[in-house]
């Protein structure tokens, strides 16, 4: 026991140092791509830290969102910037001074936080026991889901609305003339054969894993956000490989998918005023099925919203039908008629 404890301590210290070093490097490095790659690696390490803290729910989220989707988003953003844009010589002294000032402030903040955190009460006051104690009334087995969908349902509900607003904000960056068209950021000109193969084989498996994550979330680590993120990632791969085109942003069906999660959440929450005497309350016997219905709808909406956030604002159409790479055409004869449904 003691040996595995000390091994754990070694692992934790090692991880901590590694993460700090990588974080510093990621901030300090000049190249945009290099920094993004550093960020992706950083996300992976942070996911490991969450595992060490026995917070697998958070680790799943970090791995899917922090490292996976954010990596794609940042790499696409880096691709839009001029590579390693030269800093004009005149501004460099000022920039360096600014960096030093910011660095000193951040270091100071970190020192204060560290000092303060070390003085926090021991054992830490926590609601974990209370959350676990009343969990049976919700029929759930995973207290994290209990917090997200029952005790603090309002936060989750409003976050789901935030996601819709973020998407509207992204779409607002489109040119007026391109409105209603298809998002274009994930179009690739010539996806190679390997990429197309990946996009043909991986998504069905990803769908299973995504639904599994949502479904298992009731009792084990997982949930709507993690499941939705995996589904969004699969969609993004299909888009990158040119096997389907992103949907038009003015499609009614797409909009419906985007709002069904929060809308259903609201509807069941409001019904709670009658059947449970409180907004966002659940009747005793029906709590679990209702929660699962909400989570299912949320998974769908989150997947669509995240996928569309990756796909960027609507852009001018390159031409009819999807962009098909040289390797994909054999298997893809009927595509142009099917992508309307995606």
């Amino acid at each position: 026991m003691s040996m595995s404890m000390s091994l754990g301590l070694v692992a934790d210290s090692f991880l901590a140092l590694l993460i700090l070093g990588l974080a510093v490097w990621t901030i300090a490095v000049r190249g945009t791509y290099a920094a993004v790659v550093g960020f992706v690696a950083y996300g992976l390490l942070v996911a490991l830290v969450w595992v060490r803290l026995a917070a697998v729910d958070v680790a799943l989220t970090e791995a899917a969102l922090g490292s996976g989707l954010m990596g794609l988003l940042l790499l696409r953003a880096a691709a839009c910037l001029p590579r390693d844009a030269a800093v004009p010589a005149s501004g460099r002294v000022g920039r360096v001074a600014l960096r030093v000032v910011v660095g000193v402030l951040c270091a100071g903040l970190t020192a204060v936080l560290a000092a303060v955190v070390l003085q926090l009460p021991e054992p830490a006051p926590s609601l974990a026991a209370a959350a676990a104690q009343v969990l049976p009334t919700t029929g759930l087995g995973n207290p994290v889901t209990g917090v997200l969908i029952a005790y603090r349902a309002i936060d989750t509900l409003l976050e789901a609305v935030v996601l819709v607003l973020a998407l509207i904000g992204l779409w607002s960056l489109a040119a007026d003339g391109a409105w209603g068209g298809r998002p274009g950021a994930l179009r690739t000109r010539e996806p190679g054969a390997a990429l197309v193969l990946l996009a043909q084989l991986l998504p069905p498996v990803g769908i299973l894993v995504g639904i599994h994550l949502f479904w298992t979330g009731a009792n084990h680590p997982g949930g709507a956000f993690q499941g939705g993120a995996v589904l969004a990632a699969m969609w993004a791969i299909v888009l990158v490989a040119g096997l389907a085109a992103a949907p038009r942003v003015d499609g009614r069906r797409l909009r419906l998918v985007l709002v069904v999660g929060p809308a259903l959440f609201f509807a069941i929450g409001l019904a709670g005023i009658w059947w449970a005497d409180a907004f966002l309350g659940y009747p005793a016997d029906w709590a679990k099925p209702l929660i699962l219905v909400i989570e299912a709808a949320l998974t769908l909406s989150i997947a669509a919203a995240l996928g569309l956030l990756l796909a960027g604002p609507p852009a001018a159409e390159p031409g009819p039908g999807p962009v098909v790479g040289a390797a994909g055409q054999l298997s893809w004869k009927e595509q142009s008629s099917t992508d309307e449904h995606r």
Partner: protein
Amino acid sequence: MTASALVRGTAFFGCWLLLTHFGTGADLAADLLVGLASAAAATWVSLRLLPSAPGRVRYGALGRLLWRFLWQSIVAGIDVARRAFAPRLSLQPGYLVFPVRIPPGPGRALFGAFTSLVPGTLPVGSGPTAGGRAALVYHCLDLRQPVAAGLARDQALMIEAYGEDETDD
């Protein structure tokens, strides 16, 4: 089409049982119901992305192919490890243009994936040979090895397993 839908659906449902640790869930009926739904979704997407191709798979050849793949990937790992641990690197990297007989499509992509895991080769692109035939360009770790012969053997096995008519699309 229906046959392959059935096959794939069953396979995906099996994957679902795998994921949910079949039988350990609290509510078995609900588990299975969601499993059926997600297997259906996965099958639908799978058929969309990769419609089933006509043609017969020869299972004997497929088995030999898989065995060769497994063995070759172990050899590949050992080969790389040997070079990495060697005090003096012994590499002679270079390109090789390999005329490919499998027509473009999932079959050729699979061949590319396959050969990217065997010793010393890595497909990095495609292009015609000097004679104008379709070819894959390989980057090789060591040109002194009989890389092309190995590739040719892989290709023959693959064509044997999947049959020529698979490619007549």
